[in-house]
């Protein structure tokens, strides 16, 4: 036990670099998933049927393909389109496309949870469509989607671990490097301790987010119909 703690303390700088990369990746992904989610989720509620169909197609595609395949496709496929991507942007792009699909579902649910009369009243008052969204629907949908987006962030944090497979030195990869280094330099294999520690840190970070999501749901759920948070099975 003390040996494991010593090992973690000795390698703290590397672990911190990894943790920082994980949080960076998660932030970038959250930001772009939110933008993509709002755009696509809004388009999923417009009148034109073909637009809704296209959005549904996008959402289904990115939720049904294993995330690991999406990320490998972007990382290994990009050079063939003449735009080789570094690992970090490749992973960020893959996660964002996937996160955007999940975000779109949440935003669509949020907009649809706003009472129908609100949109009708706004239309009757002669507001233009973009003003209806900007002034009436989005502000009310915000309350409904907040818990679900917090839940999505927990999933995003988890999914950043896939970066380790294409060479992003995020938290999991940092752990892997420490194990390798100890095996080569000291002849020990601390895989159990290190990966156990990595699991624990992910658990702490994601538990806080999950807890926050549930709390928000209880708080906001009293006055609004909130959108259900996506399941971790969705990864």
């Amino acid at each position, binding site marked *: 036990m003390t040996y494991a703690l010593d090992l973690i303390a000795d390698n703290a700088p590397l672990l911190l670099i990894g943790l920082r990369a994980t949080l960076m990746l998660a932030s970038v992904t959250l930001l772009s998933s939110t933008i993509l989610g709002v755009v696509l989720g809004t388009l999923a509620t417009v009148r034109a049927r073909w637009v809704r169909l296209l959005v549904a197609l996008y959402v*289904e*595609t990115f939720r*049904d*393909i*294993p995330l*690991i*395949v999406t990320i*490998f*496709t972007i990382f*290994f*496929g990009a*050079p*063939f389109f003449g735009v080789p991507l570094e690992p970090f942007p490749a992973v960020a792009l893959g996660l964002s496309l996937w996160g955007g699909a999940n975000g779109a579902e949440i935003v669509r649910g949020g907009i649809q949870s706003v009472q129908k009369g609100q949109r009708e009243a706004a239309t009757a008052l002669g507001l233009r469509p973009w003003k209806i969204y900007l002034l009436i629907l989005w502000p009310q949908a915000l309350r409904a989607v907040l818990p679900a987006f917090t839940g999505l962030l*927990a999933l995003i944090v*988890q*999914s950043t*671990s*896939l970066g*380790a*497979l294409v060479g992003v030195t995020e938290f*999991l990869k940092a752990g*892997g490097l420490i*194990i390798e280094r100890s095996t080569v330099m000291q002849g020990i*294999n601390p*895989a*159990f*301790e290190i*990966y*156990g520690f*990595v*699991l624990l840190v*992910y*658990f702490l970070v*994601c*538990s806080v987010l*999950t807890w926050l999501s549930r709390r928000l749901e209880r708080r906001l759920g009293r006055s609004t119909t909130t959108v259900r948070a996506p*399941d*971790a*099975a*969705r*990864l």
Partner: protein
Amino acid sequence: MAFDIGYLVQQLPALRAGFLLTIQISAIAVVLSVAIGMVGASMRVMRVPVLAQFFAAYVEFIRNTPLLVQLFFVFFGLPALGLTLSLFWSGVLALTLWAGAFQTENVRGGLAAVAPGLREAARALGLTRGQYLRLVGLPLAVRTGLPSMLNTCVSLVKNSAYVSAIGLQDLAGVAFDRIASDFRAFEMLAVLLVGYLALVLSLSAAVRLIEHRLQAPFRA
């Protein structure tokens, strides 16, 4: 580099083997995870001391940690405890533990939806808790929980692609290997995208069909 159908045809046997491994791993993990779900949900609903808390913690832990790290922990970490599993069984174990947590929640939701009067009636008739679960609770719970249980199974099949990360030659593993060795990313990525999409979509369609059939008695 153009899309080369000839190359793809040449790789078909390997891809077929990978596809079969994907199905095999998923099938075993589906069965085992449903079993975990039944046991876990029963323990939680019956408030069996210690075990109920254990399963609650297990579910929380799995849901809040990445599957990839769980997989690495099982494959690289567990040998330290003297539990050395082959690649195949490491993959199965990790996927089972992962899906088992979601199945526990699914079955628990089903059990919670069983009308409380039925449990009281079972008790009045002198059924033990085990008999109640086996004869009344679980059959009903599975019926109401089936859609979510099947959805978890579909997710499990999809996420079985993760096992390629420890070097298993499942569908994704074979394709990633070929990309690395032959530099034919185009063909292989196309196979992966189409393959998984077809697999998941057909399973989802099957789920919806079953759901529809199950709703039959409740339709007017």
